[in-house]
């Protein structure tokens, strides 16, 4: 009896150790799997939405307090670092051009024939009165470079099954501390995104809709950006035409193209 009594606690201890190791290993494995999985999802979304080069003709519908305005533009981009936008309509904006090269932004005004480089607090200003800031446009790093991600849950959004991902900044200079992204499980397209400050305050909300298959990719042709600190219905970004991986002349992404 005594022997059994002595052996049992030892056995129990061993079992406890083994269980603990298994639990830690399993938890670690699950965690690892989840990190990879969340990152994989983001990478897949990135592959789906982005391409090496893109040309987009779009309407930006700004819902103001007094009236709505539609601004048409043609944008060229190469990866995340280079982009060039020319405003086509209305007449007030026609000929205004914007060039982004890495972390620098220039705006050209045809009325004054001036090119102005924006920096500092001006980058936080709204673009054309929309709910988007220049800073939003300047974001040129991949989400996986800036955020630690994990899958929070699976949710149904507009009858679509989605993963709800939580992205928390791992770099100090991220514009938003936290992002919540709802990704369509089948089409790898984000359907909703919420952007938060470090204090937890919801700053911006983006809703994607009109998802269509273009050149074998699922792409949201309408995005509504809403600055949660402003009243109103936000800004709609409607894609009218899009080309993936077109050839874009190198000189487009140069300051010389602003004055042309």
């Amino acid at each position, binding site marked *: 009896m005594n022997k059994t009594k002595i052996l049992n606690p030892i056995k129990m201890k061993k079992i406890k150790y083994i269980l603990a190791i298994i639990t830690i290993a399993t938890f670690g494995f699950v965690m690892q799997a989840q990190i990879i999985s969340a990152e994989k999802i983001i990478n897949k979304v990135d592959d789906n939405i982005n391409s090496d080069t893109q040309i987009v003709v779009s309407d930006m519908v*700004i819902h*103001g*307090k*007094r*009236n709505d*305005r539609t601004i048409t533009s043609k944008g060229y981009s190469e990866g995340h670092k280079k982009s060039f936008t020319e405003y086509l309509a209305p007449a*007030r*904006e026609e000929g*205004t051009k914007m060039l982004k090269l890495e972390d620098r932004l220039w*705006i050209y*005004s045809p*009325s*004054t*024939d*001036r*090119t*102005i*480089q*924006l*920096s*500092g*607090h*001006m980058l936080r*200003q*709204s673009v*054309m*009165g*929309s709910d988007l800031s220049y800073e939003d446009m300047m974001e040129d790093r991949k989400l996986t470079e800036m955020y630690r991600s994990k899958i929070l849950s699976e949710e149904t959004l507009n009858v679509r099954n989605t993963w709800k991902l939580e992205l928390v900044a791992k770099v100090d200079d991220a514009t938003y501390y936290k992002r919540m992204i709802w990704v369509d499980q089948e089409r790898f397209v984000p359907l909703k995104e919420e952007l938060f400050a470090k204090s937890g305050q919801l700053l911006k909300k983006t809703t994607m809709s009109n998802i269509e298959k273009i050149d074998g990719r699922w792409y949201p042709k309408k995005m509504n950006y809403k600055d949660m600190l402003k009243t109103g219905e936000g800004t709609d970004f409607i894609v009218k035409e899009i080309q993936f991986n077109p050839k874009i002349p190198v000189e487009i992404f140069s300051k010389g193209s602003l004055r042309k």
Partner: protein
Amino acid sequence: MIKFLLKGILRDRSRSLLPIIITALGVGLTVLLSGYLKGAFGDIVDQNARFDTGHVKVMTQAYAENKDQIPNDLALLDASEWLDTLHTEIPEMQWIERIKFGGLIDVPDKNGNTRAQGPTTGMALDLFSGKSGENKRMNIEASLVTGTIPKHSGEAIIGHDFAEKLNLKLGDEITFFGSTMNGSMTFKTFNISGTIRFGTSAMDKGALIVDITDAQLMLDMNDATGEILGYLKSGVYDQTEVNTIATIFNSKHKLSTDEFSPEMLTLREQNNLASLLDYADVMSALFIFVFVLAMSIVLWNTGLLGGLRRYQEFGIRLALGEAKVQIYWSMVLEAVLIGVIGSILGTIIGPGITYYMQVVGIDISSYLENSSMIMPSVLRAKVMPNLFYIGFIPGVLAMVFGTMLAGIGIYKRETANLFKELEV
């Protein structure tokens, strides 16, 4: 009797010198502090009225709610109609339009690229019509460090320090970049006609002053204005009068169903000036109260000392048959005379120092470098007619109260013990 007491006061200086000095100092200090408070707070209110709030300001309700953000997208439309309405309905005030705007000043190099830039807070005033009185009201001409006020479209005045920072000279070109009323990007090139220094950090920091017609064109604000400011034609802010004007206007034109309907705010209702004005009044009253209280205690003590020194005198007077009440009231009358002399001296010294503080002032510019409040960078006292009585009455009262408290001791003297006391 008065002549007799006066002779006593003048001849027996040990009886009167200390109370007179104390009263004169107290009165002088009260007058100085009161003049300084009134001057400093008055300057703050005056600068706010001239530069920002007007005696009243008309804006849309939506604009008023977010006015710190200068939301020109919520500006008042049909401005000329509203100006006509205001001129007709409230002729006792002068009405002027103003537009504030924020953005970036960009200085080009010879190739048109950015050489220097900085954030700016612009103000558009009616400079060209010559009827608005803005030049005089804002003291623009006198505040110019170099150059002249804009006379033609496309000319602007820029803050002197801002101009130095951007290395700008008169006649140089600058480009304003900002947003129109509709949110579009706007670019406008101005020539610098002058540089200015108002002496108010919030105004001098990145200041850009242009004519309102240029701003309306630049910001797509045709017949629209951010603010309509009203000034009483007397030039003096009268809270009761502006309250009545604002109440009548708001009851008639402010609609709860339309956030773009106009709302009239009085000076007190803007920039937290209500609390500032109340604070000035409370502080002024507090100074006088503390002065009367402290002086009464000090003079009570002085009276007690005087009473002790004049113990024998009162004893003899009582022994000679003078009534206690008679002695008491002669002391009070004497206190009135001493109080009057001290207060006269204090009322001469106080306004004298106040005048010096009015001319010299206290430079607080180093504390205001990052301030967004409209405050003068030199706080000055102000000599006003009320300073000639504000300390005088409390000065006399303090002396009288002090003596009345000290004099109570006379009633504790017993006639039976007088001769025994006088033998000592």
